């Protein structure tokens, strides 16, 4: 499967995406606006609570082309963060007390400077999270990475949209489940996911279709039971993530006739408590070219940080960024539905 951008698909254009989730049908048009919901609970304009997580999208290249990918990542995407931009990131990290560096992509491992950057960030004593799709670690070029990451105490947070093969492969491609199980076993063997090793292995659940995630605690227990029973696999935590109506997932919603109902579901499930804890309030997202965004979703919609605040990593200014207004639109309902959604799971 090719990325939307390689297909010259109209939905590769962020403006088209925003127009669809605001105006595609009469029902969508009538839905209350996100800003209005925030205003009702005294949260508008949305402001940061203080940046604690430095999320770097090191490139859109990926070995997979999952049906729901909000990045539209894939083997045909060539955007990759340069060493120079990564150096700007290190410089910013040196001058702030941000403790967590969250590496995402694409497949972050495919950035040619990945190992060097992890080493440098480790020297700064930062807690490093790598968002892995698991299957990349089953390729020859990257098979030594699990041990490399273990040696540096890197947390691995990996995608596994369901505990069975049918649904996992439906979303991420045939063969994904079997490869993922193989890699999870390898990670377990070197200590990941096991008590007292300090090597955190977390899984990410996201719905395979047009429905919301259920209770995180209950799903975690189901994953624990099934993965142990079926494969002898253990892990630390499970994060449930709601699919946001952008990019490839938006394409699915439109082509399957689910857009109206899904948008309505997101809006009617708005939870003020989840809104309080949205991840854009404590996270900054850095794009592959160094551009700053409020979150990885805004990055894909090319919604830069507010005018007047730093918009590129080389202009890093924590104080100014902590004082900015966060940009929002209708896709943000995805982070505030039900128990809330973030890269770290529910927000309530």
């Amino acid at each position, binding site marked *: 499967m090719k990325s939307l951008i390689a297909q010259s698909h109209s939905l590769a254009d962020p403006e088209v995406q925003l127009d669809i989730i605001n105006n595609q049908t009469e029902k969508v048009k009538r839905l209350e606006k996100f800003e209005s919901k925030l205003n009702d609970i005294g949260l508008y304009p949305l402001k940061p609570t203080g940046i604690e997580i430095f999320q770097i999208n090191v490139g859109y290249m990926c070995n997979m082309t999952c049906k729901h990918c909000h990045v539209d990542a894939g083997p045909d995407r060539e955007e990759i963060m340069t060493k120079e931009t990564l150096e700007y990131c290190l410089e910013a990290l040196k001058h702030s007390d941000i403790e967590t560096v969250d590496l995402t992509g694409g497949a972050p491992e495919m950035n040619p400077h990945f190992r060097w950057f992890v080493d440098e960030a480790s020297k700064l004593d930062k807690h490093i999270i790598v968002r892995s799709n698991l299957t990349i670690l089953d390729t020859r070029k990257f098979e030594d990475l699990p041990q490399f990451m273990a040696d540096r105490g890197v947390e691995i947070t990996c995608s596994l949209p*369901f*505990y*069975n093969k*049918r*649904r996992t492969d439906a979303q991420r491609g045939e063969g994904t489940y079997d490869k993922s199980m193989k890699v999870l076993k390898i990670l377990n063997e070197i200590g990941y996911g096991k008590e007292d090793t300090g090597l955190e292995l977390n899984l990410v*659940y996201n*719905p395979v*279709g047009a*429905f*919301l*995630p*259920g*209770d995180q605690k*209950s*799903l975690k227990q*189901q994953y624990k039971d099934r993965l142990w029973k079926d494969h002898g696999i253990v892990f630390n935590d499970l994060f449930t993530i709601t699919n946001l109506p952008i990019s490839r997932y938006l394409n699915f919603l439109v082509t399957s006739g689910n857009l109206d109902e899904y948008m309505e579901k997101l809006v009617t499930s708005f939870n003020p408590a989840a809104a309080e804890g949205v991840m854009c309030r404590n996270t900054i997202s850095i794009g592959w070219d160094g551009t700053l965004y409020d979150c990885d979703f805004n990055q894909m919609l090319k919604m830069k940080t507010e005018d007047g605040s730093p918009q590129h990593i080389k202009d890093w200014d924590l104080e100014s960024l902590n004082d900015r207004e966060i940009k929002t639109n209708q896709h943000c309902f995805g982070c505030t539905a039900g128990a809330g959604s973030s890269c770290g799971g529910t927000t309530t």
Partner: protein
Amino acid sequence: MDKKYYDPEDLKKFGDVTEFQKELGDKFFEYYGSVFEEGALTKREKALIALAVAHVIQCPYCIDAYTDETLQEGCSEEQMMEAVHVATAIRGGASLVHGVQMMNKVKKLSM
């Protein structure tokens, strides 16, 4: 008037039934809410039971609602279909068990 007995949009108006009889409607929804809270059975188990019952009573609204609910609760397709088979087995068995009555009657009437 639309010439349809069932309209998926009507499911969203379920709460409006209190318009014609508020007191009983409110009592029903309070009871309904309590039934589906986590208790001796998990919400997931209750959603699977509801899905099975929805098929027995052939309620399209309930089938839609509890298909969505069971998916949300993390049930797999196999689990959902097995729940429907449990309902079908009971429903089929309920007919078949009356075959004993028929057999008794046949034996009584026959030489």
